[in-house]
């Protein structure tokens, strides 16, 4: 006879595997997510600050939120110590943003600059920090300024750096990896922005990797499943992309991945952690809750549950933990 905890764990796991968010909701899935702070599984910090809920994000407010998130994640109150705990000294750090959605719904420049500031204070030279995405247009959509020089914070796209000649296999597809990933950076922080996705269901940290290949369109089949998981399992991505500062300062809960201001939502949150599967699981639940509030169907009912998350957690990919009862989610 299973006790309530075991029952919930099994039920929630099954719901995730099956992509059955409706079933999960009926079984108190949300409560399970909120009530597992003592879990020994991967930690995901969700840091919120409703006071920064505005179109014009204040630098100081975002920096403070970032510091709180990093302190909670690392257990180190001093921001510099927190960052030193995460990023190895001497690293060339890539900040992979997501500017695809255009100016209205891209990784916020104020967050990127806050991360870059703390990295520099932790001893990473500005010239060893590269803000990057697919191309200059996407970076400018984030509010970044292109800098291809050798001094200062560098910022340029894969369109400029180019892609490796040799393709890598992602399931049935072959794609070429950005040289910024393969050659320039030794450590990559993913800075995705949380969005609904008309095909994948949710786009966050794992889907952000579609911006590091030359032909992301080749990976969109079957609602990006297993495309997202296969891509993240490519050794250089698995090995170098080791931390996520997820931008949920604003989001679109319907109509994504493009900018739909009628579905704009401001969670005023950062989602931080190392386990990419756990992070996407937490982000998915946030999006589902907002959709439910707005009277929209679940992503599963809409025919686009992000099944790639469960695939990423399976024994063939082993990219992280997708069982919400095993995720140590910290809400601060």
């Amino acid at each position, binding site marked *: 006879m299973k006790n309530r905890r075991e029952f919930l764990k099994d039920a929630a796991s099954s719901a995730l595997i099956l992509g059955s968010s409706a079933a999960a909701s009926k079984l108190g899935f949300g409560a399970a997510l909120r009530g597992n702070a003592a879990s020994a599984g991967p930690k995901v910090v969700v840091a919120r600050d409703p006071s920064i809920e505005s*179109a014009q994000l204040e630098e100081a407010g975002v920096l403070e939120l970032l510091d709180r998130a990093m302190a909670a994640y690392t257990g180190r109150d001093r921001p510099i110590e927190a960052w030193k705990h995460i990023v190895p000294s001497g690293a060339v750090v890539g900040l992979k943003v997501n500017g695809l959605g255009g100016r209205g719904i891209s990784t916020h420049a104020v967050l990127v600059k806050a991360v870059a500031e703390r990295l520099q204070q932790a001893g990473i030279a500005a010239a060893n920090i590269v803000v990057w995405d697919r191309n200059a247009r996407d970076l400018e959509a984030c509010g970044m300024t292109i800098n291809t020089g050798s001094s200062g914070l560098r910022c340029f796209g894969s369109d400029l750096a180019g892609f490796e000649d040799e393709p890598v296999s992602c399931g049935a597809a072959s794609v070429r990896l950005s040289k910024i990933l393969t050659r320039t950076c030794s450590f990559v922080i993913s800075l995705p922005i949380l969005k609904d996705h*008309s*095909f994948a269901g949710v786009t966050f940290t794992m889907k952000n990797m579609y911006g590091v290949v030359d032909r*992301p369109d080749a990976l969109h089949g079957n609602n990006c499943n297993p495309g997202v998981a296969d891509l993240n399992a490519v050794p250089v991505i698995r090995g170098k992309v080791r931390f996520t500062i997820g931008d949920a300062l604003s989001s679109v809960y*319907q109509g994504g991945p493009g900018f739909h*201001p*009628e579905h704009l939502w401001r969670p005023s949150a950062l989602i931080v952690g190392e386990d990419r599967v756990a992070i996407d699981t937490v982000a998915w639940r946030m999006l589902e809750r907002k959709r439910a509030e707005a009277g929209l169907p679940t992503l599963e009912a809409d025919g686009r549950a992000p099944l790639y998350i469960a695939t990423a957690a399976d024994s063939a990919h082993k990219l992280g933990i997708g069982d919400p009862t095993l995720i140590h989610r910290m809400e601060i």
Partner: protein
Amino acid sequence: MRLRKSSIAASVVLLVFAVAGGAGCRNAPHDPFPPTGAVADWQKNGDTRVYAAKDLWQYIDGDAEQYIQAGVISAATSDYMYANHVEAIVDVYTMNSPAGAHTILARDGSRAGKAARLGEEGVAFEQSVTFRKGRYLVRIVAYQLAPDTPQALLALAAGIEARL
């Protein structure tokens, strides 16, 4: 030099719409993008960018799939500015049939929007307007919400509709 570059870009847009419109339509549409001043207080910024269906992912990534499934032929996009305080982007999708344009419009989720008298069907929100005219689907999105944003968007939409 810049003028010459713009002229070339405008010619490309005209050619794309002429080719798209020529396949079954007697009157090929003009360039649907109103030039600066054609609609009061609206300024067209920069060149129009055009994407064929096979390249649409370069513009909208995963969103391209639903357009391809609905029969998109090409998409054209341009930036605009209203009275120096509202920036906007205009997308004009040329579909292979009116049904395809309707499919996208219906899928966009228009429950909370107001019906707009534009083309055969349209919907307006405070910061966006979407409408269909024949096989053309037009979407206008503003990046700032000012008191005059909704009316300004409708005026620009009407200016585009008249050119389709």
